[in-house]
């Protein structure tokens, strides 16, 4: 009479445990790697209707961000400029260039250019540009070196942990207000401990970690 359970079944429980551990490990690794903003959002670089380059306009011409994004220090929302802002220069510069046909049409016919929005928090998140840029938080922390991008890409995850990393310790990132729009500024060594901490204290910077600050 043969055995009901062949000999190899003795090792079955061990195999099952090892297999389960492996499968769980790989799935957890996959989810943490692929299911966060670091994977889903970072690197998003849509093709824009007009080949507008921040390298040329901010980097080489040195135009201040607020020439175009003029709402950024006044409201929660940082606007993308109207085509009339482009036409201030492009009525003389590259006046007949085919790359700017869309801008000229948009200006004369009063229809907006359909730029694709790149950075977009979920609608349940309350975000505000003016509180940040008026308190010494530079664009570079949340958008990367835009002045070196020919096409803007999503450079930072903008996930909840990203926001909180800074809110827990803003002194690390804060800079003098006149350097906020200078994306190439690097804090001199020891700046965060010395001046950063002083700014946070003197200006009573309060980067809230309450859920209701960002989820209102």
């Amino acid at each position, binding site marked *: 009479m043969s055995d009901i359970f062949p000999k190899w079944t003795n090792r079955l429980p061990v195999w099952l445990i090892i297999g389960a551990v492996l499968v769980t490990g790989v799935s957890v690794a996959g989810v943490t790697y692929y299911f966060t903003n670091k994977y889903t959002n970072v690197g998003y670089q849509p*093709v824009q209707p007009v080949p507008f380059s921040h390298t040329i306009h901010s980097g080489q011409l040195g135009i201040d961000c607020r020439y175009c994004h003029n709402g950024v220090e006044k409201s929660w929302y940082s*606007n993308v400029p109207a085509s009339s802002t482009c036409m201030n220069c492009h009525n003389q510069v590259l006046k007949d260039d085919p790359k700017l046909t869309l801008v000229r049409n948009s200006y004369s016919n009063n229809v907006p250019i359909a730029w694709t929005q790149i950075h977009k928090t979920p609608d349940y998140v309350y975000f505000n540009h003016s509180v940040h840029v008026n308190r010494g938080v530079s664009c570079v922390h949340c958008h990367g070196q835009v002045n070196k991008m020919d096409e803007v890409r999503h450079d930072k995850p903008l996930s909840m942990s990203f926001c909180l990393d800074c809110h827990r310790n803003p002194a690390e990132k804060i800079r003098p207000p006149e350097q906020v729009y200078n994306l190439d500024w690097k804090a001199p060594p020891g700046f965060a401990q010395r001046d950063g901490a002083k700014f946070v204290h003197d200006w009573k910077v309060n980067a809230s970690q309450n859920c209701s600050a960002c989820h209102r």
Partner: protein
Amino acid sequence: MRYFVLGLTLVSALVVSVLGFRGDISRKPPLEIFSDMDRQPKLRPQEPNALLPNGLSSQLLVDGTVARGTPFAATPKNTGRVSGVTNFVENLPLKVTPQLLSRGRDRYAISCLPCHGAQGDGNGITKKIGAMAVVASLHDSRIVKLPDGELFYVISEGRNLMGGYKANVTIEDRWAIVAYLRALQRSRLAFEDELSAAERAQLK
């Protein structure tokens, strides 16, 4: 067991090769994996909107109306003109303070510097690289003699080849720029009674 490990490795390799690595450039919009309440039926600024015929969520002003909260009274401060007539006001209607001047300097650097240059002589970057042919020098004696109200008007509405900045620069900031512009112009001017006797003799 061997087959199982092999299978798992193959599946992982397949997933990595299909999904790629973090931070890769992608032309496709981000996946919203748990998209529970990510996109709600509310309007955000500058987004298209299917509800209204022209498809804009921020509607254009109807002629003859103003947006809530924007100043509209025909005061010298709002228009740069003497109330009731079309003459430009001669002097700034705001009190000139050090704060106003430094604000003006700031705003000048944002809005005017690319064309008129840091010194106001019309040698901004756009002229330097030869991209723009005509840029006025703000030290031109005709421009120095314009009334403050007319400078305000030029900033707001533009003139000839220069576009207007009333959509981008608030009224207070436009006056602050005028104040700073006056300081810039003054830096290249001297009045006769400021000269020493010897210098005055040289002029003769």
